[in-house]
């Protein structure tokens, strides 16, 4: 037993890059990975280049103003916000993932899926409800003041408040990626450790956590990219971050070039960060030995430990889901009398269609891209695959313009060619087509599905590739027959993340949708643009309800598998 165990753990822990394998694979299909990766990266690269081209148009006056009066504060704010959110989502995400993936305690089955629910809430909606409840004129402080003459020492509208709200919406990214990593390790790891006399706590710190690190960091990067790109939440808190400077330059100082330049800088910083992260684990492997379909055993918690676990999960669920959902539901019911009509079927249908098609397309692209990188694990390839995922860190509206400008350009070319050759008046063919919307979503959300898929792929041992290769199964066939079946969990995780993100997506939808083609998120926008937040609760609630579909699906799959 000891022998098997040590071999097992060793194979998981030893970072063994096998350069010879990599080289063989690389030589076998030198151009093939590039043929896959390059077009996918172009989807994001083109909008990024549009954004970066703004540097050709210097905005000296605005930059002088920004650096003197605006940027110093904003950079400090942004820095502390990132630190706070990073700490918060890691602690919440990892602890909840560990508890629900490995342990058994009262309510653990419920929390396993319920803790995903906050993800379906748009961040700014969460912010609005929290502010409505706890801001100085909010329901709770007003009630405390009138009943007990008590004034809370903590202000909701503060750095701490922003961080709290962001952590509550964004922890599911870490939770999901970490949980699928812990699930992959399975309870056997802990059993094995226990048989060696290592306590579960030590096993967690010494074995499970280091093994799950790539997945955790991948989820963390997603949460941080989303934090950086956020505008809705910080503007409700009037907390100025780097995004504030971007929108200030564009909407207030009327300089789209200056806004794009700021966004360009943001992208370069993020690119460096993600490359560093990729570099850090480029030469390490976190592969597991082949998984057997044995039902995962769980660590059964008892007594006060079990109670503490239930309380912790329940507390987070309460803060992140129950607290915002109570006012949303009340407002939604109130405004339903006035606003709910048959059109909502269409809105929900459109949202569902876009989210389904979009997430499918993104999953396919993400798997191909990750596979290309696996086949040719070079620095150049890493840069290309990282560029493909950068769209997520750009403030949405800036990216939307970056997507729109090339599309409008193509349409103009098309129209002009028609006029020139056939003297024929034509209309735009790309603009307002679903294809453009979907490609826009790819540019924005590829990161969301790439992260879990890449880390999932990394957990598959390279020896599998070699074995397949030696049997003459290579290229896309190998991907389909070997990797995709093993990646199923990661792919579903990725699809669920994309699905809810597309449900919530606004700027690209607004900019590229056909006439009269509204979605639930667009309804939220229509209401909030004139400050009618409570009327926005109805479409927001529907977003959550439709967003539940993939969560239920994931959960159903999990439990079916668990029973087998």
């Amino acid at each position, binding site marked *: 037993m000891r022998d098997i165990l040590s071999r097992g753990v060793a194979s998981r822990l030893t970072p063994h890059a096998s350069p010879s394998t990599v080289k063989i694979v690389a030589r076998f299909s030198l151009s093939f990975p590039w043929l896959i990766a390059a077009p996918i990266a172009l989807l994001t690269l083109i909008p990024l280049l549009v954004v970066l081209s703004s540097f050709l148009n210097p905005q000296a006056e605005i930059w002088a103003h920004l650096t003197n009066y605006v940027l110093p504060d904003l950079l400090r704010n942004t820095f502390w916000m990132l630190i706070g959110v990073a700490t918060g989502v890691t602690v919440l995400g990892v602890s909840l993932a560990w508890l629900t993936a490995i342990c058994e305690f009262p309510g653990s089955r419920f929390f396993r899926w319920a803790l995903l629910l906050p993800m379906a809430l748009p961040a700014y909606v969460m912010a609005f409800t929290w502010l409505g409840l706890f801001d100085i004129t909010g329901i709770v402080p007003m009630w405390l003041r009138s009943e007990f003459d008590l004034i809370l020492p903590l202000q909701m509208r503060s750095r701490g408040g922003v961080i709290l709200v962001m952590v509550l919406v964004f922890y599911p990214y870490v939770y999901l990626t970490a949980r699928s990593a812990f699930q992959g390790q399975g309870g056997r790891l802990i059993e094995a450790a226990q048989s060696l006399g290592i306590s579960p706590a030590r096993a967690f710190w010494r074995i499970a956590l280091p093994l799950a690190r790539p997945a955790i960091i991948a989820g963390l990067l997603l949460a941080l990219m989303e934090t950086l790109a956020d505008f809705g939440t910080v503007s409700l808190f009037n907390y100025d971050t780097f995004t504030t400077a971007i929108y200030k330059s564009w909407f207030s100082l009327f300089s789209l070039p200056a806004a794009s330049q700021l966004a360009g800088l943001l992208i370069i910083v993020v690119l460096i960060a993600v490359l560093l992260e990729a570099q850090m684990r480029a030469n390490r492997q976190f592969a597991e030995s082949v998984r057997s379909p044995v039902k995962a055993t769980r660590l059964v918690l008892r007594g006060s430990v079990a109670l503490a676990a239930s309380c912790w999960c329940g507390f987070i669920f309460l803060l992140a889901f129950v607290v915002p959902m109570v006012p949303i539901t009340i407002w939604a019911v109130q405004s339903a009398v006035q606003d709910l009509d048959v059109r909502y079927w269409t809105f929900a249908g459109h949202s569902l269609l876009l989210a389904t098609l979009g997430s499918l397309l993104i999953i396919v692209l993400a798997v191909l891209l990750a596979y290309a990188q696996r086949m040719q694990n070079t620095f150049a390839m890493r840069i290309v695959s990282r560029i493909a995922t950068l769209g997520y860190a750009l403030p949405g509206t800036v990216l939307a*313009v970056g997507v729109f400008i090339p599309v409008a350009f193509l349409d*103009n070319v098309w129209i002009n060619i028609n006029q020139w050759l056939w003297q024929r008046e034509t209309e*735009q063919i790309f603009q307002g087509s679903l294809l453009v919307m979907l490609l826009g979503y790819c540019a924005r959300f590829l990161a969301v599905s790439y992260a879990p898929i890449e880390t999932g792929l990394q957990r598959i041992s390279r020896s599998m590739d070699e074995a397949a290769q030696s049997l003459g199964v290579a290229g896309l066939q190998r991907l389909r027959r070997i990797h995709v079946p093993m990646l199923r969990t990661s792919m579903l995780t990725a699809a669920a993340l994309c699905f809810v993100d597309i449900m919530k997506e606004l700027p690209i939808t607004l900019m590229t949708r056909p006439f009269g083609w509204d979605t639930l998120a667009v309804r939220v926008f229509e209401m909030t643009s004139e*400050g009618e937040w409570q009327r926005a609760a109805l479409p927001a609630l529907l977003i959550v309800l439709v967003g539940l579909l993939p969560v239920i699906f994931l959960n159903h799959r999990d439990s079916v598998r668990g029973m087998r």
Partner: protein
Amino acid sequence: MKRFLKAILPIVLSVSASSVAITVHADEIVVYSARNEQLIKPLFDAYTAETGVKIQFITDKEGPLMARLKAEGKNTPADILLTVDAGNLWQAVNEKLLQPIRSPSLSENVPENLRDPDYNWYGLSVRARTMVYNTAKVKPSDLSSYEALAEPQWKNRLCLRTSKKVYNQSLVAMMIAEHGEAKTEKIVKGWVANLATDPLADDTKAIEAVANGICDVTIVNTYYFGRVMKKDPQLPVAIFWPNQNIANQEAGVHVNVSGAGVTRYAKNPEAAKKFIIWLSSEKAQNLYADENMEFPVNPKVKPVAAVAAWGSFKPNLINVATAGELQAKAVMLMDRVGYK
């Protein structure tokens, strides 16, 4: 998984390839609107019912709409840009996105200070940015002008919405037009020194803060006040019209507009012009302004009863286009004095 993909992939491909796109017919008008759907759709429907002219529209924020018009260039399907705030309309002219239209009825329906001096756009509803005070803590006689809120007697008694909202940028821009930059900077600095709490995210929050005694007075658009009062008529807040008895003939309550212009490359400029004239006419003005409790721009049209109940006021008469021209200056000024 495979079966699922097999079933769904053909659908994916066919749907994404099918361009649901833009099919605009000759007699249709296409509107790009930053004014939200529930405020404009009833008007479009009414116009279609009356004239048979169909209206296609798309809503988005002003910035993206203008970027979109610019990228589409000569081939834009849009005939009309409908947006909120004179600053944005000014910017549309600045970016050469609109074309002038002239008509006697437009000149008659829209007062001179509420339209572009070069006829590129016309205001369609008036939004007054005024003061709201706590009736238990402030006597109306204590209040006089926006400028006076900078005086030390208002220390810790003032609430303001964030300077990032264009409404405040326009207000400060118009003050620059009236007083010059140096004096305005002093006034805004005074405001910031008098703040009782950090600037708030929206006008509704500012009114709630006043009603709950966090501060005594604030500056907001009237329709937010209307909305709050409709929900809770008992609140101890009231409207005050500032800058009424000032020697300067042009001074008065700060007003802004929502308005529209015909796009430079409109396919259907004549129909678009007719529609804008119709929007400014007596028939349409109440429909346009009332739903959001704004003031009609057409002097012959009375506001809805709830709005009329706030009393009449003398508006500032400087052309609202000035707000756009001076907006960048105003924003930089507010940044300098630390108005967040």
